């Protein structure tokens, strides 16, 4: 039999990756056009868990919307909660005491660590290294225990209120935060030893799913994914909120924008976050104020329950807040925070009513996930899986 050397009609295979696939950590569908094991083209379908958060925002009083933000990037929900509170505080022009701002920073940085921790250990899992993931989970558990002490919840935290926190951190919470800062470096070092200079891990991740700085900017990337490409844009530095300007920290950047760089940027950011938490603890120690945990905004901050039952004025405020009778200024604000995945923005238009007139959420995942087909083109299927997990695409935030 004679073998032809030339293939006349080239046929591509169509492969459905998802919507439910064990390797995609969420509901993502990608229809891949494959040439053997090489991806020629792909198309993403999203929206499988769309819950109309923007529309729901037009229906809920300001203080009730916090629970929606929990369900966006659920790996770091405290950052979303704080972002929302700060947006409303900006609208009502509420200044917070320093102590509250530092406490918020501690919570936000803990959330950042838990977010990056999951993302990085999952990159490990996708390269076949289960160990790091299993070992590192005790640290996430530790962070969740801290959340639990502060607000009683673990995943969808609903932490804080408009104007501050619902209650002061208790002794156990402080003790746990301090012991986390002390103990965690050991765990993180151990994790880094497993992967950072691991030959197999490096071979799998260096050069996979790269994106240049120029393309990343053009795609409006933000957060660790943009910084891995070499652009040092971080909202905490560019537009400091919650007193981030008082802190000393570095913005780690990568050079190639590949999976390894994204991994390393997140790894480094965890060390920086630890430094920030330590600084915040020191600053709190130096502050004279040891008890304030909310600003004085009786129009928005619920009075303590015992006062509601015994005091006329407190009862009135309680009623006004719960029924949405408080006057809210008309206007529009945009506030953004550096979420686990990048610039998380809230664009809020208020018409003076009890709920937002229009609420638009700038979700970093939604914006950078559209570059996914471009990043995996020409690569192997197994690299596409790695690229997705290293981009940290969270379905809740993507589909909102």
């Amino acid at each position, binding site marked *: 039999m004679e073998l032809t050397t030339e293939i006349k009609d080239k046929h591509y295979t169509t492969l459905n990756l998802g919507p439910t696939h064990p390797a995609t950590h969420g509901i993502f569908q990608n229809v891949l056009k494959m040439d053997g094991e090489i991806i020629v083209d792909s198309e993403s379908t*999203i*929206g499988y868990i*769309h819950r*109309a958060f*923007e*529309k*729901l925002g*037009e*229906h809920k009083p300001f203080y009730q919307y916090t629970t929606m933000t929990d369900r966006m990037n659920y790996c770091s929900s405290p950052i979303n909660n704080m972002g929302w509170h700060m947006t409303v505080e*900006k*609208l009502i022009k509420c200044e917070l005491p320093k102590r509250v701002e530092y406490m918020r920073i501690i919570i936000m940085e803990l959330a950042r660590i838990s977010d990056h921790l999951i993302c990085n250990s999952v990159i490990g899992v996708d390269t076949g290294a289960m160990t790091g993931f299993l070992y590192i989970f005790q640290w996430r558990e530790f962070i969740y225990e801290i959340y639990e002490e502060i607000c009683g919840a673990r995943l969808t935290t609903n932490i804080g209120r408009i104007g501050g926190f619902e209650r002061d951190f208790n002794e156990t919470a402080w003790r746990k935060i301090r012991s986390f800062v002390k103990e965690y470096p050991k765990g993180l070092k151990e994790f880094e030893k497993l992967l950072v200079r691991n030959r197999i891990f490096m071979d799998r991740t260096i050069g996979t799913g790269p994106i240049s700085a120029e*393309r990343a*900017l*053009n*795609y*409006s*990337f933000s957060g660790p994914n943009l910084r891995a490409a070499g*652009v040092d*844009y971080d909202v905490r530095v*560019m*537009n400091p909120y919650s007193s981030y300007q008082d802190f000393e920290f570095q913005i780690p950047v990568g050079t190639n924008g590949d999976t390894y760089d994204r991994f390393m940027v997140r790894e480094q950011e965890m060390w920086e976050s630890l430094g920030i938490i330590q600084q915040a603890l020191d600053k709190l120690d130096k502050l004279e104020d040891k008890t304030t945990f909310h600003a004085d905004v009786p129009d928005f901050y619920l009075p303590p329950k015992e006062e509601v039952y015994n005091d006329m004025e407190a009862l009135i405020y309680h009623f006004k807040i719960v*029924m*949405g*009778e408080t006057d809210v200024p008309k*206007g*529009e*604000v*945009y506030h*953004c925070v550096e979420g686990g995945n990048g*610039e998380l*923005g809230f*664009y809020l*238009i208020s*018409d003076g*009513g*009890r*709920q937002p*007139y*229009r609420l*638009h959420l*700038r979700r970093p995942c*939604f*914006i*950078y*996930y*559209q*570059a996914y087909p471009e990043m995996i083109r020409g690569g192997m299927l197994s690299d596409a899986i790695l690229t997705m997990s290293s981009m940290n695409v969270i379905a809740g935030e993507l*589909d*909102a």
Partner: protein
Amino acid sequence: MSKPTIEDISNSLKEKFGENVISESKEYDFTVYTIKKESLFEIVKFLFEDSDFQFRYLTTMCGLHYPDAPLPFGMMYQLHSLTNNIRIRFKAFTTKDDLEYASLTTIFSGANWMEREAYDFFGFRFKGHPNLKRILNVEDMDYFPMRKEYKVEDETRTDKDDTMFGRLGNSKVKV
């Protein structure tokens, strides 16, 4: 040249586009320009290419709907100049019958899904968009759910009566 300020941007926009920049206002920490929608593409392109301003980052965009206004529909765009750290916002309003905007996808690749989202929820059409179809909702949906005429709750429900409590919020908007 020293770093441009927001005044420099306003002046050069007025100088270059004149009538097309309808108004300028300050909303909290943002400068907001209301512009004619025909000039949107040119203005964004100018700001993107200008070597001093360098608005190379499209933060976000979204649709707006004010049913009672003379121009009820609008798009909001937010640009960020990372080199100067200046953020600005544009709004361009239009009538119900003319929902076509210029697509920014040739300037910003990231505008692709944002425009699809605006189409999906408000029905704006973007001229020059490579793949304008629904993104978060199901493809056979036949209305645009973020428009104000669509209430969040089923209007046939009678078990929820808010008339005694709370002020009339925007859920009572007439269409």
